[in-house]
């Protein structure tokens, strides 16, 4: 894992959503682009992070697809940069019990790294024959 950096394992996420958008809009965007997290951006500023799971819970108990993104999003997402060492980011996330990190490059949101991505890192260090990820990651 020497030299591994977050950008190699994050899920690229060029799509963002506004805080006053509806959960229905957010879910539609996630489905269209095959992503599970949407950074919430207001006037160019990152103001939150919304996950598909947040929406699933909202729907389960609220029947609230018309509710706005701001009501359900995580308002204080952990942020990191693309070239941050993977191990350090994982260490902080484990200690603070953060489930995800928004990866920002300057003012731009470029991706999201989640605990599920961390599981992928471990899995791909010892790929199975039926690995979902046939393209091997080579060491540095």
């Amino acid at each position, binding site marked *: *894992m020497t030299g591994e950096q977050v950008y190699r394992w994050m899920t690229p996420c060029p799509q963002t959503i506004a805080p006053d958008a509806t959960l229905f809009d957010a879910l539609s965007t996630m489905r269209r682009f095959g992503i599970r997290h949407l950074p919430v951006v207001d006037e160019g500023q990152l103001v939150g992070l919304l996950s598909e799971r947040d929406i699933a*819970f909202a729907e389960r108990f609220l029947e609230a697809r018309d509710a706005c993104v701001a009501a359900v999003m995580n308002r204080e997402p952990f942020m990191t940069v693309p070239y941050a060492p993977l191990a350090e980011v*994982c260490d902080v996330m484990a200690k603070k019990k953060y489930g995800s990190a928004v990866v920002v490059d300057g003012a731009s949101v470029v991706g999201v790294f989640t605990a*599920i991505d961390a*599981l992928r890192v471990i899995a791909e260090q010892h790929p199975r024959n039926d690995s979902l990820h046939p393209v091997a990651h080579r060491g540095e």
Partner: protein
Amino acid sequence: MTTKERVRHPANEPDPTIGAAMTAQPLTIGRDQKLSTAHEMMRENHVRHLPVLEHGEIVGVLSQRDLYFLETIAGVDVDKDRVDDAMSSDCYTVPPETSVSEVAATMAERHLGSAIVVERGRVIGIFTATDALRLLGKRGKEQHPTEKAS
């Protein structure tokens, strides 16, 4: 294994069994317990997942995230509603000899937050996505033990 593989291949990372990487003897809760009890156990013990048992056997898993959501958004009565109402019965169980990489692969594929380690029908441990983060953080420190000290 060649020298090149040892140095360059990511499989150089150790692949312990889940029994070695899990949190052993996790707190558990009964499915008939109140949600308020579950929340208190999680808060006091700083854990986020509780295996749910019935007659000593695993029947589900309850996450703190589910509980917070129930309390803050749905406004349910945590003093009356029970674990059974909020748990996920689709929990992933594995024997202790399973490799961490295999468990991690399944958790990643199914987007699971935890795996419950079961031996002879009894829960003996839990491995969560946070444990995966901790493992990667620890490996980084082992590879760069003096970076922070210098």
